[in-house]
């Protein structure tokens, strides 16, 4: 039988603050991390709002050596991992070794480094490109930096699954434990805002002028965000042996690929439907068991309509409360579903559903029970985290109160 997998710690770097509790508190209060972009000049781009992590100082979380050898995206990962370890009350050296793996998601990784290296190349030729900065680039490096920080010597893997990357990493990380390949997995995802990437989203016509209004009739698109959320996943045996207090249990997960269009979701949501149903059934639940859905909800016309339709189809018209925290922290791309997972875990703990802010007019195409503008409390045994992504990727993960996943659930077989 596969082991139960517990989340025993979480760390968050976000435009709304650090640490899972502060993050969730800000979400519950409906605060916004969206401001004018400070990281680069937006005058030629046509949009100038984003949810940046403005006050991040690597040295608050990283050693001097770590800060020197990492880019911002990796630094977010290490910061999140340190917070998660502390949250899990894991002494620094206790998970050292081969039975600890690191699996992280991202979309573009150290995108700002590429831009910096390329600027140097254009300005000064190849000699202008510093070898130390070359060796800091690489999507591969995210989990490697974290493995060094926590002493992990097992698998070091990046799953660049675009905006579903957090769910991919958590789902696959949980399967590594269930399939006996690891006792502890440090997982989650990280993303930073880069100039090209911000501009690219604008050029796709996907970016809203100044606010993100998921599921609203007047929604105008997404707001780009950044951050990281990193988790400690432990096998039941490992967690119990050390007397850990699990925050939540990771249930089943579902993935699929639309195989339809590189940026647009399938109009019928075939892949999303599959991912949602699989996550629920894999967890040994019925759709009627799900208490709350942390939706992908990007506030683009296409995403929200398809996602809402899929949710209605899966939940058979039952009005399950749904929220999109992208209304407050923007679309953190690869980190989005990881940050949403952090919020899901807090919802599982305390029953607070974060609000979908800026919601004023119901869209008949998004006929779902939106938790509009104010947080509210409700049942919180089983929470679903949904994501869709570039490349037609779909992934959904179930989080539940520890022990709530039925022992006969397929994910535990």
């Amino acid at each position, binding site marked *: 039988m596969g082991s139960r997998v517990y989340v025993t710690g979480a760390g968050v770097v976000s435009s709304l603050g650090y640490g899972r509790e502060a993050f969730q508190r800000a979400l519950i209060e409906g605060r916004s991390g969206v401001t004018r972009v400070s990281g680069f000049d937006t005058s030629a781009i046509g949009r100038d709002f984003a949810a940046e992590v403005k006050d991040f100082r690597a040295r608050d979380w990283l050693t001097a050596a770590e800060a020197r050898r990492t880019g911002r995206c990796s630094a977010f990962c290490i910061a999140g991992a340190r917070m998660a370890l502390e949250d899990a009350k894991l002494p620094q050296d206790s998970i050292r070794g081969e039975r600890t793996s690191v699996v992280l998601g991202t979309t573009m990784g150290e995108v700002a480094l590429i831009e910096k290296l390329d600027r140097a190349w254009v300005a000064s030729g190849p000699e202008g490109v510093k070898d130390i900065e070359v060796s800091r680039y690489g999507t591969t490096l995210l989990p490697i930096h974290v493995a060094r920080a926590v002493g992990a010597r097992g698998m070091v*893997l990046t799953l660049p699954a675009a905006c579903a990357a957090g769910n991919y990493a958590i789902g696959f990380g949980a399967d590594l434990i269930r*399939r006996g390949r690891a006792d502890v997995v440090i997982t989650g995802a990280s993303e930073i805002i880069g100039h090209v990437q911000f501009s690219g989203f604008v*050029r796709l016509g996907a970016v809203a002028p100044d606010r993100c209004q998921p599921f609203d009739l007047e929604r105008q698109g997404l707001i780009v965000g950044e951050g990281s959320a990193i988790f400690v996943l432990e096998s039941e045996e490992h967690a119990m042996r050390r007397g850990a207090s699990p925050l939540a249990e990771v249930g089943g997960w579902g993935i699929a690929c639309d195989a339809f269009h590189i940026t647009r979701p399938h109009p019928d949501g075939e892949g999303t439907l599959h991912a949602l149903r699989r996550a629920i059934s894999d967890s040994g639940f019925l759709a009627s068991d799900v208490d709350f859905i942390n939706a992908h909800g990007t506030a683009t016309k296409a995403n929200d309509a398809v996602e809402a339709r899929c949710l209605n189809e899966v939940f058979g018209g039952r009005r399950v409360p749904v929220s999109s925290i992208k209304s407050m922290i923007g679309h953190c791309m690869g980190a989005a579903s990881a940050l949403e997972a952090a919020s899901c875990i807090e919802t599982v703990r305390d029953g607070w559903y974060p609000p979908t802010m800026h919601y004023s007019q119901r869209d008949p195409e998004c006929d779902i029970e939106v938790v509009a503008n104010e947080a509210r409390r409700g049942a919180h045994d089983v929470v679903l985290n949904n994501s869709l992504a570039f490349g037609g990727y779909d992934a959904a993960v179930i989080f539940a109160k520890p022990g709530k996943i039925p022992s006969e659930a397929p994910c535990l077989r």
Partner: protein
Amino acid sequence: MTPLVITGLGAVTQGVVGRAAFEGATREREVGSFRAPTLFDEARWPGARVVEATDFDPAPVLGEKGLRNIDRLTKFFLVASRNALEDAGLKRDAKWLEGADGRRAGVCASTAYGSLESMVELHRVALLESPRYLNPAKFPNTVINAALGYVSIWEDLRAVNATVCNGNCGALDSILVAESFLGTDRADVIVVGGAEAMHEALYLAFERLEAMAVDGQTFAPGDEERSKGMRLGEGSVMLTVEREEFARARGASCAVKITGFGTSFEPPSSEVMIINLSSEAIERATRLALDDAKLTPSDIDAVVSSTNGYSAYDAAEKTALASVFGAAKPRALVKRAYGETLGAGGAFALGTAYVALDRGITPAAHDSAQWPADARRLLVLATGFYGNASAVVVERG
């Protein structure tokens, strides 16, 4: 691990498209055709020597339409994946054969620097002209998983799609990810492997790290005494893998199986270092793979090496193998033939192991030890630059 049967292979590299050509290259290509680059200005890189797929034309396989906004990496992936599905008898003329179903088929593969080409291209537009002129049709290529997203679109692979990054080890790691997906019944067949595309930025990076063997310098992967550096290559190898019962039920050959996987990480000894060519990690990955396959070192007939000509890199493998096996095993030196293909490196190695076992081919690129004609069990290695290493056991019969 649950053994996975390899039922098909697709490949693209210099002078190679498809399985038959890859088998030919395995049999005959002792050293690849390392030449001055054509994809970027050789005058800027005196003495640069690389293997490019200069003759690669996707149109005969994919047709003329729909390729305009797709980058070189994606074209490699598309052609090799199509080859692998057709070679496995799942598709013909790009269509699923009866009994095969895109809802139960997926792709899971590696690229280490896949989006670099498009990132640099778009960044130049933003930097030298204006971000207003970024081509939105090309922007998706800057996202690492876009290439496999296109593979799913073109090949109708809907069950799973995962891009895997672990530097040079990613292609071997894609096997474990696929095994996890197949073992949890998310798919019946998955195309695994990797691809990497040549680009000046990639050349620049390794040149700045002083890792390259230029013209006139000895390039000899596996010979760490003589070799002066590595040389980059490009292309893709993709393999169709399935659980044995599924392959058997559809009448596919189950002659060659992947039976063991191991991976490990060893941090550098110094806090200031990033690069770490670690014999400890290779050794642990190898021992884990052998344990996983329930084999002992003496069961292994030969090794498909990860050596790339950079002497410290090659020395790490030599040390690890000496520790695990004692006496040296014959080694296929795949990167002599194809160059260092980074995220695709493990896939070229695995493809070599597959055709060596399935067809009894002796890889032409091998070391001085006699390659066993009746080889049944091969260890395939992938060494990363950062202390990461992965290993896979492939068996016949």
